[in-house]
């Protein structure tokens, strides 16, 4: 598609939507959000970019085959479950550490977040794989 308006908008929307997707991802543990929605928003951002410019531009931005993202995301999610086994607990048991960050206070970081990150990457990878193969046909 050759539309100046869409191209200009996509250029500005891409970083904003990606930031928002990360916000959704981090917020997901206790409030609405999470890896799945975050991944959807991120893929929407990148697909918008691909429609505004072309798929080659998207591939350049991505720097890797979207199918690799599926594998990476799955491994991250899998590892997040395996951590518990090392501690002698059942698979997928949440492992938490508290982190005191100056200015923000105490924050809990745990394997459920890692799992969500995995989901985020898988959703992104799957969506981009599907859309790219449709767009490039």
């Amino acid at each position, binding site marked *: 598609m050759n539309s100046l308006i869409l191209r200009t908008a996509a250029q500005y929307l891409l970083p904003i939507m990606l930031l928002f997707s990360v916000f959704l991802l981090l917020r997901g543990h*206790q409030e609405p959000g999470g890896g799945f929605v975050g991944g959807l928003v991120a893929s929407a951002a990148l697909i918008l970019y691909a429609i505004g410019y072309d798929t080659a531009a998207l591939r350049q931005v991505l720097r890797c085959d979207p*199918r690799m993202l599926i*594998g990476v995301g*799955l*491994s991250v999610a899998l590892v997040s479950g395996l951590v*518990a086994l090392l501690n002698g607990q059942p698979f*997928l048991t*949440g492992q938490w550490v508290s982190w005191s960050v100056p200015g923000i206070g105490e924050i809990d970081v745990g394997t459920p977040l890692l799992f969500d990150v995995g989901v985020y990457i898988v959703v992104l990878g799957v969506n981009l794989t599907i859309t790219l193969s449709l767009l490039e046909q």
Partner: protein
Amino acid sequence: MNTLLVLPILIPLATATVATLSWRKPALDRWLGLLGAAALLGVSIALLWRVRAEGIQAVQVGAWPAPYGITLVADLFAAIMVLLAGLMGLSVAVYSLVSIDRGREVFGYYPLLHVLLAGVCGAFLTGDLFNLYVWFEVMLIASFVLLTLGGERAQLEGAIKYVTLNLLSSAVFLTAVAILYGVTGTLNMADLHNKLATVPAGVTTTVAMLFLITFGIKAAVFPLFFWLPASYHTPPVAVSAIFAGLLTKVGVYALIRVFTLLFLQNPAYTHTLLLWIAGLTMITGVLGAIAQHEFRRVLSFHIVSQIGYMIMGLALFGLSASTPLAAFSLAASIFYIAHHIVVKTNLFLVSGIAHQLRGSYELKDLGGLASRPALAILFLVPALSLAGLPPLSGFFAKLSLIQAAFGGRYFAIAAVALTVSLLTLYSMTKIWIEAFWKPAPSANNGQNAVRDKYHPVLLVPVSALALITLLIGLSAGPVFDLSVEAAQQLQDPRGYLTAVLGETAENQKRFEHDARASLSSPSAASVEVWPRAGDRP
């Protein structure tokens, strides 16, 4: 804490993950697939060993306690099924080494195969109905792609029927799960077993019928089987073989699980219906097979007819209530499943070799294969076993089922089982005469490449499975004893309940109390039940 129980799901998932990362390197994927399948088989043997030695194993995934979290449970029946899945996985992984074309490999054949195995093992091991639904979906999505991978016209045509019917079945499944949750407030199967006792029989029977429809579609019983012969002969033979061996059996497994653990309130209705379905499935399947003249379509119709036998054991179990005969009927069913998975996968693998030699699955184009004695014997072992000739595994499977029918004085179903068995023999004889005995058709119309050789690696899984068929037949005693043990665990669910929900009666009371609280004030209960990250376990 029981890691062994998680491994049959984790290993195929991990294999699929790593295979996805090496997407563009089929050679690496091939060996990874083999390694993963071998590891799965190893773990499943260890699991069966452990369950037999130490009783039913359970693990609460994520350490969320029983009726709220997801429980994985392995009783003997589940462990036997996981072992069979591991065995079929490895056989097909070996067979795939030399029979899957590069195009399919590059488009993710190996990751999908292992996702399929993960789904199958997950469905066998889960103790939670909604989780069962999820594993069914994992398995179905992988099977959709495996079925259409390659995009040949026949494949897509078969896939449309397969996908439509299976999606319909999933929708019914979800509805049934939702109603059950609405009625009882739980989906943990052990917990459901306790709670369903207080639910009016009419409601339970309705839900039971919904489950019968959904698992009936997946298990391909009469009258919901037609998607199976329409699709199973279209993908590459390695895919057909694993579908034929495992997928419908997951449906049968789910039927046996819910109709032994959950829905025994009104067996005079539900299990009589199952008995009718069993008989009609056997007959329609075998009659369909007689009308077919394509190697894999004949075999597909026989899957349907054999499913009837497995359901027959389940039906007889419910109808003879808590007598020793009930355990015997169910044991016959379990033995039948074990025998059938091995034999049917093997027959499909043999049809693939025939295809390599003659370039066709049509019986009229085949012929002259009897000049290869090894191949001929490797066909005869599973074929005669399927028909039920002694001393092969199928003989003992059918014998015990028919004994069970006589024991309960259900003579009609015994007569049906015997007749269908004879007609199965007819079908196998047809394949034997057409594909093996008659001389090779001289004029091949120049279409099909006739080759002298097939890849010798293809013989490895085929002979291994034939050997297992023989072994099951020759050591039918010990194998049947194992099936009886598994059936007794299903008949008397106390062991299962204790393994899932914990020892004490106090525990039970607490669960019931929580359930009442959640019924009266859902919001209060959800706060109480759902721990926040702050007070993590």
